[in-house]
């Protein structure tokens, strides 16, 4: 009897995965406009690379928020892609039913990246909120690329190049404007011009 009562107390008080079921009939979903990305070039440590944009679509019937993530899967070929190597712009978005938005993905290899073949998933996942057991959906494009070995000097050169590329057009516009200003000043200090209406 004591055991039965104790069991009842346990049942009443133990952890549960009890949740409030929301709009149960609503479909939430996600789609991508790209299935697979195989990078043709061998990439270099320190380099920065812009991947083709991913179109994220809401195929469901309610407004849904998504986050962009990098992941890997069981038994995949190649090394997993570290999440910090990939940056999405934007990395989170909210879409009305039927709407699509492009997301830009950028791959930044650190100077110490191990050479070899890499594989992983670029995925858009539903952002789940609330308590209890949530069921989420995602759609992913498989991505593969190879990283070549590089000297430290070469890797840093690519890193500097990637930085300058990211700052364009300022990395060439500002020095060019400055050079033009100095050139004009040099010319004006050495030559005299006077513009007059022809008589």
């Amino acid at each position, binding site marked *: 009897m004591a055991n039965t009562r104790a069991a009842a107390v346990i049942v009443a008080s133990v*952890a*549960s*995965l*009890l949740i409030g079921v929301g709009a149960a009939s609503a479909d939430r979903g996600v789609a991508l406009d790209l299935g697979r990305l195989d990078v043709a070039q061998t990439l270099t440590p320190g380099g920065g690379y*812009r991947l083709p944009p991913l179109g994220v679509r809401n195929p469901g019937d309610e407004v849904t928020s998504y986050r962009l993530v990098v992941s890997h899967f*069981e038994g995949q070929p190649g090394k997993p892609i570290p999440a910090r190597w990939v940056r999405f712009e934007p990395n989170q978005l909210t879409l009305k039913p039927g709407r699509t938005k492009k997301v830009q993905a950028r791959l930044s290899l650190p100077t110490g990246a191990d050479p070899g073949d890499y594989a992983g998933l670029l995925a858009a996942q539903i952002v789940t909120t609330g308590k209890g057991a949530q*069921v989420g959906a995602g759609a*992913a494009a498989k991505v593969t690329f190879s990283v070549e070995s590089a000297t430290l000097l070469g890797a840093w050169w690519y890193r500097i190049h990637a930085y300058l*590329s990211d700052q364009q057009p300022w990395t060439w516009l500002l020095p060019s404007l400055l050079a033009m200003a100095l050139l004009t000043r*040099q010319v004006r200090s050495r030559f005299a011009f006077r513009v007059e209406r022809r008589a």
Partner: protein
Amino acid sequence: MRKYFLATVALALVALTASAVPAFTADSGTVTVSVTAQAPPAPCLTVTPGTVNFGALPFSADNGAGMSEGNAEVDIANCGTAGQNLLGATTDAVGPSGAWTPLPYLGTIDPCAAPNRFYLYLFGFTTPVLYMTATPAPVTTTLGGPTAAVFPVGAKTFRFGIDMPCRGSNGAGETKALTATFTAVVA
């Protein structure tokens, strides 16, 4: 003055040179890589409902003999134009007093080998039953092997099952939160 002028011109040349190499197809920003991009068919997935209810469950006991199970139904649909692979993964079950870790199936079910560990699995869909962990794994597999099988266009109903952690685990009286995520990947 002449030195400043030459230095500025040199700086401009360096910036222009560095922006122009390597010889990939460059646009206004980072280097754009050449890819073989697989256009349609593209992955598409919907799930209903977004939350499932396992009810209030007691902790498991005694190496599976007193194992506590619950289940809940879910509809999942391939809304793409072709068959796709489906991957499944789950987070820890988290609550105010701590987390429970999902366990893979290693030939036996034993939630009482240590506290704060549970099993989340799918049945009515997969062959064999898939025990979900943090690593995305194929939900649709060929019979008797881990090879991913194609999930055809259309909808499928299946059930989640949960084997509760052992007595002595954290979370008595709490509602734990977890997210099971299904990811569609073009086959």
